[in-house]
């Protein structure tokens, strides 16, 4: 053979004269272009960079999320249930106290603000029809001329005249006529010549209006402020509080006292939802640009404000028990692998297409830690068998003896032809259909974080994701030739003529549903999936990216 090799080497591997099209002048530029493009792109390095960068980023995010939940959001996760309940109760109490104190502060502050500008509060009985006039038209004109906000109540003419300038709220003039009840601001009336800047801008009237003047007031208010007031019970006594302050101050008060402002209906941007929670809220009042506070006794159905639920109420709607932080679960189920081979010419196309996944078994054990009633982290170990099946045709040499035509003799005289047949041994090639089974045994260690979604006290769902380390510790194959019934056992590595990296890091996810038998024991169904990428050669051109999925029944025990 060496002799033949040398003969052929000499004959076929001697330098050839290059055709004209193959000179450097013709091929050189395209070769240089290709070299330049290859160097610039550095494709393998680039793809590896992005691959590792992507994996690293996802892993880092998962680690940060885990750290956040472990060390920042839940710094004292090892407290027992009693302490947690106490903390929770005290936290709610503290919140309530804060709200109460804040509300009181707000009220105090408002009262204080009002008190500073409060001039007078007069309650006028409806029968008293001979009240003296506390203000005059001159006073009114004067104060209007000064372009200050004021509130004027004329006794004799029985009206309340409230005007504001542009700088206060709106240029709207509101008149409220009553038969008898007249209220006037002291500052705007008695201190006519020198109305102080402070008091001229602010006045407060608190009055009770008799039933016979109420309808007129309501009509006027309705005509000015909307139809929402039509539901006011006209038959009952009403108390109207009117606070007139400059717009700037209203804004300040609103800012300082948001809750009070909402209750008073002063905000124009109130949403419909807020209205429902507000007692005595009158539709249309909220559209008022004026900072009036109307406390009207109405027949409105009073919707009680939302109350903070008590611990007992919370616990009845919470299916996951606080305090049982640690749990473990054991699961057994079935698995299926979706082989995903990539890379050029990994196997022949026929083999590639015909590889199919088969169902096999898996077993899981997980230790879980409940961060709160919603989040759970788990560390586990899983043993799983994944099977695939190849169907392909394999060639084999055959030795056959056959009677074939070996010689033809032609008689030149007679022009006759004689054919000679002989039994000869023939070296043939046979193609056999082979069914080949591969068995991949995986040891997987997943770290996952799961979002628990309680449905009721007995059932909860979970959606989890994380990363895993997997070790491929078994990869055997067995083939059977259908024509010869000849079993052949060999490893997957040998079968595909490539070397696996036996370990990889990939992604895991799962969806499960748990049903609690009692406070400690649960059973559930789980669907899980693992995905990883395994390089099968040094240049990372061929990769094995199996998607491993499984379904299992599991039992969970809370410690």
């Amino acid at each position: 053979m060496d002799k033949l090799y040398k003969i052929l080497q000499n004959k076929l591997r001697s330098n050839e004269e290059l055709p004209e099209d193959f000179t450097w002048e013709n091929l050189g530029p395209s070769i240089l272009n290709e070299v330049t493009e290859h160097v610039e792109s550095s494709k393998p390095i680039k793809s590896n960079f992005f691959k590792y960068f992507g994996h690293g980023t996802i892993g880092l995010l998962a680690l940060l999320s885990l750290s956040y939940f472990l060390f920042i959001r839940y710094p004292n996760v090892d407290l027992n249930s009693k302490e947690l309940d106490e903390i929770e109760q005290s936290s709610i109490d503290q919140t309530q106290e804060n709200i109460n104190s804040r509300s009181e502060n707000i009220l105090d502050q408002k009262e204080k603000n009002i008190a500073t500008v409060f001039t007078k509060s007069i309650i006028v009985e409806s029968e008293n029809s001979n009240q003296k006039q506390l203000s005059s038209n001159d006073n009114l004109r004067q104060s209007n001329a000064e372009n200050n906000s004021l509130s004027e109540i004329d006794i004799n003419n029985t009206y309340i005249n409230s005007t504001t300038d542009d700088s206060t709220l709106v240029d709207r003039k509101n008149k409220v006529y009553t038969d008898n009840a007249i209220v006037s601001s002291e500052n705007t009336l008695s201190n006519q010549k020198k109305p102080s800047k402070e008091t001229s801008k602010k006045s407060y009237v608190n009055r009770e209006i008799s039933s016979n003047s109420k309808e007129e007031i309501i009509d006027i208010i309705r005509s000015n402020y909307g139809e929402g007031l039509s539901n006011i019970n006209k038959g009952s006594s009403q108390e109207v509080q009117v606070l007139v302050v400059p717009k700037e101050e209203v804004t300040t008060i609103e800012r300082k006292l948001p809750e009070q402002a909402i209750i008073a209906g002063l905000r124009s941007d109130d949403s419909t939802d807020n209205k429902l929670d507000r007692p005595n809220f009158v539709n249309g009042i909220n559209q008022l640009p004026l900072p009036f506070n109307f406390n009207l006794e109405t027949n409105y159905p009073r919707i009680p404000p939302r109350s903070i639920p008590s611990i007992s109420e919370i616990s009845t709607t919470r299916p996951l028990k606080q305090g049982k932080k640690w749990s473990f679960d054991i699961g057994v189920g079935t698995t299926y692998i979706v082989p995903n081979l990539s890379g050029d010419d990994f196997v022949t196309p026929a083999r590639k297409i015909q590889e199919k996944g088969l169902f096999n078994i898996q077993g899981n054990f997980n230790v879980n830690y409940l961060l709160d009633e919603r989040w759970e982290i788990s560390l586990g170990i899983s043993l799983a068998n994944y099977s695939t099946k190849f169907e392909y045709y394999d060639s084999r040499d055959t030795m056959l003896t056959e009677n074939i035509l070996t010689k033809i003799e032609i008689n030149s005289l007679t022009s006759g032809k004689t054919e000679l047949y002989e039994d000869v041994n023939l070296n043939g090639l046979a193609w056999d259909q082979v069914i080949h089974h591969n068995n991949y045994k995986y040891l997987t260690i997943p770290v996952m974080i799961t979002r628990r979604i309680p449905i009721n006290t007995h059932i909860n769902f979970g959606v989890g994701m994380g990363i895993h380390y997997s070790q491929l510790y078994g990869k055997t194959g067995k083939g059977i030739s259908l024509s010869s019934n000849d079993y052949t056992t060999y490893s997957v590595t040998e079968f595909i003529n490539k070397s696996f990296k036996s370990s990889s890091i990939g992604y895991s996810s799962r969806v499960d549903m748990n049903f609690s038998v009692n406070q400690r024991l649960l059973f559930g169904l789980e669907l899980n999936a693992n995905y990883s990428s395994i390089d099968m050669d040094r240049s990372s051109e061929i990769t094995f990216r199996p998607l491993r999925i499984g379904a299992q029944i599991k039992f969970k025990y809370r410690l």
Partner: protein
Amino acid sequence: MVDLKIIEKCKRKDELAYKQCYNACAPYVYSIVKNYIYDFELRKDAMQEVFSQVFVSINKFDPSKGKFKSWISQIAIHRCISVLRKSKKLNLVVHLDTELEIADYTDTISSINKEDLEKLLVNMPEGYRTIFLLNIVDDYAHKEIAELLKISVNTSRSQLSRAIVWIQKNLSLEIKNYIYG
């Protein structure tokens, strides 16, 4: 074949050195490409791919591990197989049939001159020729051929057997034609 200084310059991406290297190696590379590929345009593609691959990976060439000629011939053969595969001209699937038993063909081939041998290879089926060249001419083992062509070792052996039988048969026909006119 090529001076080491030129190779060093090629490693530094000197375009003049590329040209010198090409002019020195192209005749030998062409002799390889010519045997594997008979389509003229594909030959050009193969030559281009061979030399671009040589220049891209020339930093990997280590003179202490082997000759530049061997290294470049390896690249040339792999590129030729790649080009054949891309063009789908490499078809190794054969059906079950029978051929003559292999006899010692060394003397027969030795007696043929280069031109006749090349003519013989031109008419040989692509699959036979590739394995014949790889095994007999370029001294690849069947296992290496199996890995290169993604076939089984048995298939490689069978194809070689069939290639040799094919040569014997065609040589016999030539002889018969000579005898019987």
